[in-house]
């Protein structure tokens, strides 16, 4: 069968969501951010909330997320996205409000904002991209960096005596009464991406149903910061990151 007979609009089964616009993303080849952006665009479209979404972008690689997903965005100061989202949601209770943050933003400088927003039970969704490294600034050690992992600022590997232990934000947040849904997902293969999509959708639905804060941690790769090819980075993540950050729901009420 000729390929041109298959490629017809009625046979289309998958394509880029229309909410993800045509700007070429600045992310490195194979970066997990792109997949998560795509999932968000798909979910917002499916929920019919394209005109009623306020997203808050962080400081970090995802700072330019507002160039790619065609919803309304606010750019927050470093780490303050949950505080900005709190105001946005309280003033616009009918809007879908979510933050999109990396581990340098959410787990380091923004730990206080994250924990207090979750403890207040703000009706927002926090999407937390955890790749264990500061990607944008050149691969320095983050609070989530694994023990023994080599980064620009711990060239002999992270040691607990000098640098402390990896910070498990999801486990911390799961203990808070205001958080209604805390889950850890990844986007390294098709099955994981489908599960992550369901988790993000549930988070968004929780925030619209005023159930409390949802935190969706997505363990992801930074192949440039880790100095690996994208597929090797995925394999390394499965081997090392998943041992420290196990997948699954930590809290779902």
């Amino acid at each position: 069968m000729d390929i041109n007979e298959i490629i017809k609009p009625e046979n289309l089964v998958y394509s880029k969501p229309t909410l993800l616009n045509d700007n070429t993303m600045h992310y490195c080849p194979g970066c997990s951010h792109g997949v998560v952006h795509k999932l968000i665009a798909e979910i917002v479209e499916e929920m019919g909330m394209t005109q009623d979404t306020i997203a808050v972008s962080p400081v970090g690689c995802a700072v330019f997320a507002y160039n790619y997903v065609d919803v309304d965005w606010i750019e927050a100061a470093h780490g303050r996205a949950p505080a900005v989202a709190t105001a946005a949601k309280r003033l616009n209770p009918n809007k879908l409000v979510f933050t999109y943050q990396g581990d340098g933003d959410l787990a380091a400088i923004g730990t206080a904002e994250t924990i207090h927003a979750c403890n207040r039970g703000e009706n927002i969704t926090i999407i937390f991209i955890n790749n264990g490294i500061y990607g944008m600034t050149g691969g320095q050690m983050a609070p989530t960096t694994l023990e023994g992992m080599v980064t620009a600022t711990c060239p002999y590997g992270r040691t607990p005596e000098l640098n402390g232990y990896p910070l498990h934000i999801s486990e911390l947040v799961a203990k808070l009464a205001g958080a209604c849904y805390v889950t850890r997902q990844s986007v390294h293969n098709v099955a994981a991406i489908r599960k992550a999509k369901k988790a993000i959708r549930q988070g968004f639905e929780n925030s619209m149903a005023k159930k409390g804060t949802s935190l969706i941690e997505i363990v992801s790769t930074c192949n440039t910061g880790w100095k690996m090819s994208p597929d090797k980075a995925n394999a390394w993540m499965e081997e090392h990151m998943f041992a420290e950050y196990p997948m699954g729901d930590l809290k779902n009420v």
Partner: protein
Amino acid sequence: MAKIKGAIIVNTERCKGCNLCVVACPSKVLALQPQKVNNKGYHYAFMQNPDDCIGCASCGIVCPDGCISVYKVKL
């Protein structure tokens, strides 16, 4: 049993040649261009064995840049 045939279109200018679709494809249809590059200098993905495509959309789902559109027909 109904036979299924698929095909994909790669947005070659958007593709960054990250190789994730090549790894994700269950029927080993895809490969990166060995010689040709796009305007940004990336070796973009293409269908090396187009006859084996089953239109499962794995490549499209894992593509971080949303470059791949998947088409499927039942014969």
